[in-house]
């Protein structure tokens, strides 16, 4: 019975890591450090408690592992919030130290095994300890690396960091495989729920995504089958994976690997690979197994958990076709990468939407104070009736109109009309460059819009005052000498 040597060992490693911790204490990551420290003091307590008990049970060890994971997780989340090369460097050095510790530990165990054969359960316990430590190190390493990938961003890493939490406690090793497998399984609902829970823990990522897509959700509904009420079970639910949905090509040549969007194109391509692909049978459209038995209707589910189109949603509404799935997924859960070059405000994730928009871009003359434009007046008024605090924005040509019948007119004789108008347009410019919040409505904005040829509000509403000002300034530099002031002058002197 030699529980004692174990204790100093543990404490030693702890002291080591504590030392690292202190080294880490960089003003930048102070709160992170504090958190660590707290956790470590917990750790201390438990390990101190451990000294009084017999060390044989595996429970404390598991707890150590769990706490370490927790620590990692804390580190993870702080890193996610603001990624920084220095953090990365810190993490790496931390990992390095940890591996050294592990090395020491294994060395100690090894030495002790040489001294006496030891008990098998003790050996097993040590092995478990090392496994847990190694696992957490690997997880950390991967998540650190993962945060570097721009496309993955923090979604994956956060999922995995949470996932590992469950993974390390019950299974050893296959942390990542676990997640992937879980998601890939086209599983029934009951089965799925237990698997989904850890994913649901990724609270904040889900919320973030939802807030972005909330307004889109409304739009999506129009390609939905609102009227269709299919009793659950009367149709087959298919769920494509994200990668499949976003894949550029869906049909691939088995010989050269070239990808195609359409099946027919692939068949045309295959002809080049030999005469056997030129037979009518090979060129024919693959039959849809026209068997006499009734085919179950196919409906599709969105792979995004929490989405209304996901089959686990309470009010699940299936999507009718693969195309619907693709469009839905892109519109709702992807970045809007296609932006209109004419108005520079509208962005779309589906290229067809951009094309539709381009057809009437610039003709959307009904504006809301929130910056949303409408091609129809009644749509604008519906929007305003719906949202609190939104107001119809005055079209920019109003300002041109208001320039002439000004009070100034009274003081001036008709003869020196031009001077007056000059003065007025100057005054308008001055007003436009002012920093009051209503500068949104001020005449200066019509400078750029004349050039653009459409009455679009050039400024997105979410921008803060500073950026709006800088916009106004740049607008003035670009356009004011050419069209802003002098176009106004021409208008008014007519």
């Amino acid at each position, binding site marked *: 019975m030699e529980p004692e040597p174990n204790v100093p060992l543990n404490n030693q490693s702890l002291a080591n890591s504590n030392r690292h911790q202190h080294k880490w204490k960089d003003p930048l990551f102070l709160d992170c450090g504090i958190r660590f420290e707290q956790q470590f003091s917990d750790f201390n307590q438990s390990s101190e408690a451990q000294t009084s008990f017999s060390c044989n049970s595996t429970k404390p060890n598991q707890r150590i592992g769990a706490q370490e994971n927790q620590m990692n997780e804390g580190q993870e989340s702080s890193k996610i919030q603001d990624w920084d090369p220095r953090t990365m460097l810190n993490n790496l050095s931390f990992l390095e130290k940890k591996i050294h510790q592990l090395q020491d530990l294994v060395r100690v165990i090894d030495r002790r095994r040489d001294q006496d054969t030891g008990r098998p359960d003790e050996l097993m316990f040590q092995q478990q300890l090392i496994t847990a430590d190694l696992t957490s190190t690997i997880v950390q390493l991967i998540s650190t690396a993962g945060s570097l990938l721009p496309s993955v961003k923090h979604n994956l890493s956060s999922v995995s960091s949470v996932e590992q939490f469950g993974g390390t406690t019950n299974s050893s090793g296959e942390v990542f495989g676990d997640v992937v497998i879980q998601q890939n399984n086209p599983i029934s609902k009951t089965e799925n729920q237990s698997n989904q829970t850890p994913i649901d823990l990724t609270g904040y990522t889900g919320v973030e995504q939802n807030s972005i897509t909330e307004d889109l959700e409304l739009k999506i509904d129009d390609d939905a089958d609102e009227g269709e009420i299919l009793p659950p079970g009367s149709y087959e639910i298919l769920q494509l994976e994200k990668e499949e949905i976003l894949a550029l090509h869906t049909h691939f040549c088995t010989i050269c690997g070239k990808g195609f969007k359409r099946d027919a194109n692939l068949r045309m391509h295959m002809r080049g690979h030999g005469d056997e692909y030129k037979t009518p049978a090979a060129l024919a459209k693959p039959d849809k197994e026209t068997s006499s038995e009734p085919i179950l209707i196919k409906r599709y589910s969105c792979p995004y958990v929490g989405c209304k189109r996901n089959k686990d949603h309470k009010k699940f509404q299936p999507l009718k076709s693969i195309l619907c799935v693709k469009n839905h997924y892109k519109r709702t859960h992807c970045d809007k990468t296609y932006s209109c070059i004419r108005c520079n405000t509208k962005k779309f994730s589906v290229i067809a939407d951009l094309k539709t928009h381009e057809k009437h871009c610039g003709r959307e003359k009904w504006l809301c104070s929130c910056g949303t434009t409408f091609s129809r*007046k*009644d749509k604008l*008024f519906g929007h*305003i*009736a719906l949202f609190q*605090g*939104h*107001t*119809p*924005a*005055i*079209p920019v040509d*109003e*300002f041109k*109109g*208001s320039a002439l*019948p*000004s*009070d100034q*007119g*009274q003081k001036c*004789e*008709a*003869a020196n009309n031009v001077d007056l108008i000059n003065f007025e347009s100057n005054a308008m410019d001055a007003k436009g460059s002012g920093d009051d919040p209503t500068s949104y*409505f001020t005449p200066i904005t019509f400078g750029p819009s004349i050039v653009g040829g459409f009455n679009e509000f050039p400024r997105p509403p979410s921008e803060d005052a500073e950026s709006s000002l800088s916009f106004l300034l740049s607008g003035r530099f670009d356009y004011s000498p050419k069209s802003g002031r002098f176009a106004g002058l021409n208008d008014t002197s007519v």
Partner: protein
Amino acid sequence: MKKQKSMTEPIFNRFDLLSDEIVFLILDFLNDDPLDKKSFSLVCKSFHAIESRHRKILKPLRSEHLAKVLIRFPFISYLDLSLCPRITDSSLGVISGNLVEIDLSNATDLKDLAAASIAEAKNLEKLWLVRCKSITDIGIGCIAVGCRKLKLLSLKWCFGVGDLGVGLIAVKCKEIRSLDLSYLPITNKCLLQVLELQHLEDLVLEGCFGIDDDSLTALKQGCTSLETLDMSSCQNVSHVGLSSLTSAAGCLRHLSLSYGSRVDLALADSLQKLSLLQSIKLDGSQVTCSGLKAIGNWCASLTELSLSKCSGVTDEGLSSLVTKRVDLRKLDVTCCRTITCASVAHITNSCTSLTSLRMESCTTVSAEAFVLIGQRCQFLEELDLTENNIDDEGLKSISRCSQLASLKLGICPNITDKGLIHIGICCSKLKELDLYRSAGITDLSILAIARGCTVIETINIAYCKNITDRSLVSLSKCSKLNTLESRGCPLITSFGLSAVAMGCKQLTKLDIKNCQNIDDTGMIPLAHFSQNLRQINLSYTSVTDVGLLSLASVSCLQIMTVLHLEGLTPSGLAAALLACGGLTKVKLQASFKALLPPTIIEHLESRGCVFQWRDKVFQTDRLRSKILETTVGRGGMKQFHDMV
């Protein structure tokens, strides 16, 4: 020096002992003459400051200095800009949040930008935008979102506002009590939203041609709060729509169906459910005898009825109605030319508590009827007997109505001084007297009126040819007189006019057309004393450039009619027009259009002045009376008056 200062200080401080609230209470009593408060504020700096804080109502004649004025009077809650000649979008940028009422009627140049400025007044409760033709749905939308506390909104003649704007008002401004949508191009769509307003009491839909029976039949419930409904000139609404409306709006008290569908039994039946109905206006409609009888039967609480210019009003129908509805307070039977003395006998017999009776152009009513009015309806406050057969006997009887405030005796050729003197002696509360073309009147009547009716405000002695300066001198004792019409009184001279100008400081409207003995010597005292003058007609007088130019010192002057002044030159006219800064409407001979420099006309128009060019040839008096004879036969006196 220092000693002197310390001597004066205690005297000054005595006023400081009074708290602002006490001074405010005193100021509350200074309402009779707007100049009183001005005098008060000019006493000293502290009075000026007190007056600035006290003022709640502002009704400027010009908008140029609005920004400064609003700074001086920080507690203005009611702003009336309806008299300003030209309000531009930019002048409204100064609107502040503490305004509660704004009247922008007639500001035809206002655009949506101004509406956005109005929307800044978050506490606004009442807003009048009558005839703001350039404001569209967008502007109304801004107001709907900004002014959530609106209780009253008038959009009459805002032709740019349609279903969407009105609909948004109904969605956003839930506090609306009173809504005027007259002549708007609205349809059923927004009406349903409007009728869902919980507190709506007063709704005016005059001339809304887009509203028809369909929308009203679709109205299943709601509008239980509606008390007043005006559906005048809604040509597409018949008794079908009305009956569905009346079943939904059971609390209706006032209903106007003027110039609408025929008033027959079916329509009257649809009013049956309105047990609280107090007043009905059926002006200009075709009325049947059975319809009138049914109204008399159904409308138990009826107190006001207007049948003005209705066709088909007969003795039988009217008599049946008035004998049932003895509580009638106001009755208008203008231009009901078939009713006779019998109707008047029934009216006076049953409706003894009448306060208002208007029977202009009831030419078939004989002279005896007016004696009955005086004998039985002694609570009358308003009596319109224009173009009637009333004689001195009737007038003497009517003088018993001691509450009489308004009496119209235009074109009553049978009345003389004998009758009118009784009115002057007995009706001390008379405020308005119309003697247009009642040629039997002389100075004696006016002397009696001026002596007896000291509170008189409006008097019309046009074409009473025997009136001389003596009348005007006696009228100058009536300090409340604000309107004087003395067209075609050839004996009146500048002397009489000066007397009126000096005595009647409240004079705002003066018509001395065709008083050829009035010249520049009358204009100069007028310009000096009548600082409240807003409207003047100088046609066919002997006023020249000098007289016209002197009027420039009247800063309130807005409306001017200058036709056929022989002594007027184009340059004098131009100078006068430029000098009168507040002009909004000027009637001129068309021949001047070519003689005035176009730049001046342009400039004046940009100030908000509207020119009306008249191309009438110089008419002699005899010719004019001939025209009168032919016109008055048809349209009633009022229309003719407007025409001339």
